[in-house]
């Protein structure tokens, strides 16, 4: 993954892996930080699987929590769509 922003993370199974960071941002509606990343997995349609997690800074470590609130998920989804369709 050269020329891209990457992070080394430890997944739920304790396995270390390198992921590509697509966006690290703060959502103004709730003031929380979120990370969109990908492990570059491709689905049957040739699209790339991406994950969005809440970033919780615990000082020395950082926890990537899964989003359970559907409203937040929809809001982030809307933002992603707008960013993709925006004029550069």
């Amino acid at each position: 993954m050269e020329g891209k922003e990457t992070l080394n993370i430890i997944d739920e199974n304790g396995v270390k892996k390198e992921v590509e960071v697509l966006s690290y941002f703060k959502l103004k509606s709730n003031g929380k930080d979120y990370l969109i990343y990908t492990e570059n997995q491709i689905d049957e349609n040739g699209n790339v699987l991406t994950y969005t997690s809440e970033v919780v800074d615990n000082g020395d470590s950082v926890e990537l929590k899964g989003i359970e609130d559907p409203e937040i998920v929809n809001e982030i989804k809307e933002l992603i769509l707008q960013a993709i369709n925006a004029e550069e």
Partner: protein
Amino acid sequence: METKLENTEKVENLTLGNLVDRMPKKTGGKAFLIPKLFILRIRNKWRKMKTRLEEFIGGELVNNSIEKKENNIDKKIEAWEEYSNKVREELRNAVAENEEINSEFSQENEEIPKESSKKNNNISQNKVNINNISAALTYSKDKIEKLRQKEIRINKKGLGIFTLSALAIKKLISNGFNKIKSSKESKKVTKEKNASEEKNKKLMNKKTSNDISELLKKILEEYRRSNELEQQKLEETKRSNELKEQILSMLVSLQYTQESERENNYTK
């Protein structure tokens, strides 16, 4: 004295033509004992008087009435009335047409907001709105570097799983979220902007159509005034012609009186 003018005859029935015709054409006998030369002189005098009277009244004497002149005036009045009615009709049609245009304008203006609001909804979904309020703040690479220095653990994947094309990923990375508003805000601002634009358009159209109708009203008013003035002039002309006719008949009666006096004096 025979063949003298009967006293029972009224002056009004006499005309210049009658008087000239009554003048005896030959002397002697039971006619007037007036020398032929004198008769000729009187005839010439009558003819001159007739000419002068015709010049005075500005028309031709036909059976002691100014029929031709009156007919001309009546015809003129009729023609003018016809013309003015035609002009009024045209102006009424123009005003009616203007009102139709006004109603079309108002219909169009009602339709325009609906169409433009539809367009704006589509645009807001597909286009970036550059404004001061953004829904999210994309962190710079320095922030990512700080994360990198810590141990990062995934707790749970959650619901935020999306599939994106390679191109979409590229755009997401390059555009970021800093220029993106929340969808609610963008729709609200666009709607307000469109509403004010449509209001201005309506005002402009209304003003234009009002100006046109005002102008047409003024033109109609001017035509009415000029028609009234013409009518007044024609009536005055008619009155003056009536006066001239009265003067003419008075002159005729005066001439008759003078001539009969002369005849009486001469026969004596």
